[in-house]
């Protein structure tokens, strides 16, 4: 019945507002999460609806016919056009899709690989642990973007390959955080008790250790998202991303860089701001969550 539906909607909306209010009460950290989530949600929604809201086809060249491209923001093209006459407003609206896809895939893959690896290695201990840690440290010590570029060069272009290269680079981060968490939890009395009582390794892992490690995973994941966005932008910037007719903010930065000296600032500026906003959204969430879920982590300066 209609009335029930209305009440249900009201209730679910209230349910949404409650956590928001709860978060807002937690001070700066709470606000950081809220604002970060809001920014991210806005961009995601804009990207999802982009096919509908773009004024022009973002991949169509010469929407504004030559000569005179790139042209500055005008009433007809609010954010201007790039050097092949594509509408920048459409490209800004539609340009986040690839990056979001890459980020989501890579984060999921990282969690799926890095978390079990970290749990297993630290729980097993001994030589296995030392060996895996060694490999992880080697990867971690390597400048991330350079490694991602190297892997992308080998694998080739495309969303999946970009995600893969970012995944390889970020697994060590999860690994290290989880490992250090597990090592400290291992010492706790009730875990030792469980072990002494003869509980199977897997039970100990899943029932005791994993729940304690979850908050850290969430925090690392949000930071991972932000880094994945930036790395994806970097990869596309150097041409290792998606084909050039795809709308992507990284491409706009790459194209716009050559136009800077002649004063065509509008090609890189708006897309660059969008990249910053998206990465910022996740970073803010990560900062806030980090403080809320695990106050200890913040002081370690990780």
């Amino acid at each position: 019945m209609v009335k029930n539906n209305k009440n249900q909607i009201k209730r679910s909306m209230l349910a949404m507002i409650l956590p928001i209010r709860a978060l807002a009460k937690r001070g700066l950290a709470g606000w950081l999460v809220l604002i970060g989530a809001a920014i991210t949600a806005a961009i995601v929604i804009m990207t999802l609806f982009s096919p509908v809201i773009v004024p022009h086809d973002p991949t169509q060249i010469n929407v504004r016919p030559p000569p005179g491209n790139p042209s500055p923001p005008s009433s007809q093209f609010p954010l201007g056009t790039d050097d092949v006459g594509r509408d920048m407003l459409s490209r800004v609206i539609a340009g986040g899709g690839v990056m979001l896809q890459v980020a989501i895939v890579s984060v999921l893959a990282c969690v799926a690989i890095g978390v079990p690896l970290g749990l297993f290695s630290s729980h097993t201990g001994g030589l296995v642990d030392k060996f895996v840690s060694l490999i992880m440290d080697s990867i971690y010590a390597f400048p991330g973007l350079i490694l991602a570029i190297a892997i992308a060069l080998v694998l080739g272009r495309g969303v999946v390959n970009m995600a893969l290269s970012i995944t390889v680079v970020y697994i060590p981060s999860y690994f290290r955080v989880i490992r250090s968490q597990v090592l400290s939890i291992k010492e706790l009395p009730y875990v030792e008790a469980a072990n002494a009582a003869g509980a199977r390794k897997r039970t100990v892992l899943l029932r005791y250790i994993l729940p304690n490690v979850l908050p850290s995973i969430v925090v690392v994941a949000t930071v991972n998202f932000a880094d994945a966005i930036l790395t994806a932008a970097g990869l596309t910037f150097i041409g290792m991303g998606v084909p050039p007719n795809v709308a992507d903010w990284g491409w706009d930065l790459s194209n716009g860089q050559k136009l800077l000296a002649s004063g065509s600032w509008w090609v890189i500026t708006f897309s660059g701001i969008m990249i910053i906003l998206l990465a910022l959204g996740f970073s803010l969430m990560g900062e806030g969550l980090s403080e809320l879920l695990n106050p200890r982590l913040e002081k370690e300066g990780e």
Partner: protein
Amino acid sequence: MRSAKAISRVVIAVVLIVVILIVGVVGYYLASPPATVKETLLMGTTDSVESCLDPARAYDFFGFEIIQSLGSPLVEYKPGATGAASDIQPALANTWSSSSDGLTWTFNLRQGVFYDDGSEFTADSVKYTFDRGIQIADPDGAWVGIGIDGIINSVEVVSKYVVKFNLKIPFAAFLSLIAGQECYIVDPKYAPKAGDAWSVNDVVVYQDGNPRGSNPMGLGPYTLANWTRVAGKDTAMRLEANPRYWGNSSGLPKTKTIVVNFYTSGSGLALAMTAGDVDIAFRQLATTDINNMKTNANLKVWEAAGPFIQYLCMQQKNAPFNNVNIRKAVAAAINRTALVQTVFQGDAQPLYSMIPTGMMGNTNAFQSVGDPNYTLTQELLGAEGYSESNKFTFTLWYETSGHYPQSQQQALVLQDSLQKSGLITVNLEGRDWAAYRTARQEEIMPAYILGWYPDYIDPDDYIQPFVSSTGGSWIHHNYASTQMDQLVEQARSSTDATARANLYTQINNLMVQDVPIIPLYMGNQFAVSKTNVQGIYLDITQNWRNWLVYAQG
């Protein structure tokens, strides 16, 4: 009341003063020394010597550019040349002649020319240069790349000032070849040979702190006073007038010192030119920067049709491009005007023949296929069974590391114009230059864009390397036609200018029939300078003549 006399005295005085003033001012200007030519010119570029300054190996644009300032050839091209035989003028050779069968060329050399150590330039120097070039056979070098040892059989010293070339085949473009930078005469003292067997190790490479030892040239308008490289890139270079240059009597070089400033990006160079940090900017400026500078009253933009062309290749060993109708359909759907307008903002010209405009042999052949002609495209594709619901789809490859100008934009425009036919879908695939080269080698690209700088200025260099089955093997597009091969051979060995022109028309027509390759555009060359700079000649030879450039005041 003043008397009339007093007034007239005043008037006379005033007139006298005015006259004196005028005479003084005019005299001052007349007596000022005439505007002098500046001693030093600063040139900015993004180029860098890629291999070395040894003509036996050098094969990059900038290397050649500097070799030209440091050495001299037997013959050279006049400024403003279009590639005709009449554009060749004497340099180290005064007169020359060829035998009727075209297999022997004899040159009478200029006398009284000396190297910087005092030894004289003679026929021996010429023989030494060519023997060395052929013997060194640097796999990486111009001599091998151009195939000079396939053309020249031997070089004979007839007398002190007469040298004879014996050729393996009659080669119509021989003078063109001799005028090229790879054939510049070296200084035996600095160009080593090791016993009887010369090798790649005898190539003269960059030596830190020793500019004279870093180049085997001599006899040119300039000497290399300073050359430094860091991490494989040039950081400083200074050319100073050669006191023993054979052209000194004509007042050359006009500018005594040329300092080269190296910039790592086109935008950096553009900024420097706009700020007045350099007198001349040459290579490589982006189209948008050049267009901005055209409207700048403090700068002069020099522009000329260049010999650089780009064209579309298709893999003809398998489907779909082994079918001439499909090749023709694609050729018909190309909009060169859109390409030139969108990507180059008019700083390039549509090209309808592989031979560039202005050179003998150029015709508008491909215009008859379409520019664009979507009706023809639809007809041909329709006959092959394609339709709106079943479009002809292929992947167009292009290179991404800036080896050619604005490749990505070109690909986007081509994609757009082909898709506008309604029956074609184009996917784009970009690779950096190294991977692109490998892909070409492995013949995995259905359609790909390439570019071409000539090795010598002759229509043969725009035909034989592309449509001859032997000469065109490096393109790996697997086109072979006996008829075409015959025409090409005849054209390159014929000594009659009219007959040659005729043959090239036939070749153009055959190309429109077979569509082995599709010419796209011909690039313009640009240089930018301050308004007081003169003497820049941009022509089809791509010769940068430092010795003719000067700035007033």
